[in-house]
């Protein structure tokens, strides 16, 4: 190998910026109504009542996937993690089975997002969730975590 290729810095160059007619996604749809975000008070209330399943459905239904605001996304992620951690291991199966396909996909996105910020307690729980969601959503739900542009 030539010595000058030992440097890996060139891999980080964004070559697309030199392409004039680069592909840009339509931004039109995003500027419309601001995407919903889960209401923290509502979730906390549901969790305090011990109604984790309903809380999970609310966070997944209102997930701000289309939002471009990092703060909204982060608070939604933290909220979702809080809800996921509130489940007992024995309840996970039942919870996953009561979700529809779209919620399963959204949940899978949050599980992978959760893996990006690992902590000891969280990862064990997330792996359990991952196993259960995978058994329902199959590899298709993982594929959609990778392909969908509106991410968690």
């Amino acid at each position, binding site marked *: 190998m030539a010595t000058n290729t030992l440097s890996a810095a060139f891999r980080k160059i964004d070559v697309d910026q030199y392409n004039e007619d680069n*592909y*840009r*996604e339509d931004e039109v749809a995003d500027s419309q109504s601001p995407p919903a975000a889960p209401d923290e008070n509502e979730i906390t209330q549901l969790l305090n009542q011990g109604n984790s399943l309903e809380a999970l459905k609310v966070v997944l239904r209102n997930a701000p996937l289309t939002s471009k605001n990092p703060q909204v996304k982060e608070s939604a992620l933290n909220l979702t993690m809080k809800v996921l951690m509130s489940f007992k291991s024995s309840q996970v199966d039942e919870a996953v089975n009561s979700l529809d396909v779209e919620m399963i996909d959204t949940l899978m996105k949050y599980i992978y997002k959760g893996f990006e910020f690992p902590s000891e307690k969280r990862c064990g729980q997330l792996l359990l969730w991952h196993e259960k969601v995978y058994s329902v959503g*199959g590899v*298709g739900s993982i*594929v*959609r975590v990778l*392909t*969908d*542009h509106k991410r968690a």
Partner: protein
Amino acid sequence: MCEKYSFGVHPITCHSWNKDRTRIALSPNNHEVHVYNRSSGEWQLTDVLDQHDLRVTGIDWAPKTNRIVTCAADRNAYVWSPCEDGKWKPTIVFLRLNRAATCVKWSPEENKFAVGSGAKLISVCYFNEGNNWWVSKHIKKTIKSTVTCLDWHPNNTILVSGSTDFRVRVFSCYVKEFEESSATTKWGNKAGLGHILAEFSNSPLGGGWIQGVSFSADGNRLCWVSQDSSICLVDITKGTQVHKLRTEFLPFLSCLWVGPNAIVVSGHDCCPMLYTVDGSGQLQFAFKLDISQKKEAGGLSAMRKFQSLDRQARLEISDTELETIHQNTITCLRCYEGSNGSVGKLSTSGVDGQLVIWDLQPLEKSIKGLRI
């Protein structure tokens, strides 16, 4: 239930049959196209079409006029006409592209063909008698990325394309020079070449390269498969609403209407699957075409054990084998018996170098109450 043939260890990029299915043209993932003749179950290589410089990406054999069109990463297309000695004579078609051609398809009347490419355009080609030359016209409108798949409407003047900008577009493909006006369809009035009739986004969540598109036999319904493992359906008689089914499988690469309400899809899962369309236009999983069972490992003898340990450094050798007939991605799906919309048998080829012909009838019978 199905016939299996192997064409070596190389992947089969794509394949295409002649009219009576006695011959097949396939590309072994390089710049060549091999034409085989089948006589009494044996495949005989009759000709190698080797004009392309780079990897062949598309082959289509016109049944009526018996011509083969091929396109490749070298940005060219060739139309091959048969000679009396069984060989094929090439005619080059300059597509005027600056990127690789990705797919090619004859129109139903076989008087023109369309080529998709990485140059964000579709080249529609027809033969000009006066110049003895294939003329190529470009459709560029609103395409923002590589065109990956194409299909013709049965009326010969409408073309659908799928591309990596996550969109499916329906174009008018009516060439004024030599075509008479055709009746209007549900897709819209006839207009000049390249006029966009409809445009669909693959997913409200963005993403998902379109991998395969297909018109139904009446041309009113359109289905496509994409990289987000989903199958989408549009029925233009009922509006432009997209019915999307997110499946639990790996992404599909091609789709084909096998009945008025049935679609077969195949791709990275190595197993063709049949989906049906119900009255409300929703897609439903019906069955897998591949019903082979995992082979029982015939007793773990000491010899086998140490042989496998020696060769592969593991005890079990069976875990490298898939349960399906195809051992790798299915890249091409073609009708073998019947026609679009009423397929009796279909053929698949893939990265494992296999060609498999599937019979739908026994499967249909074995599943009670199912009508394709």
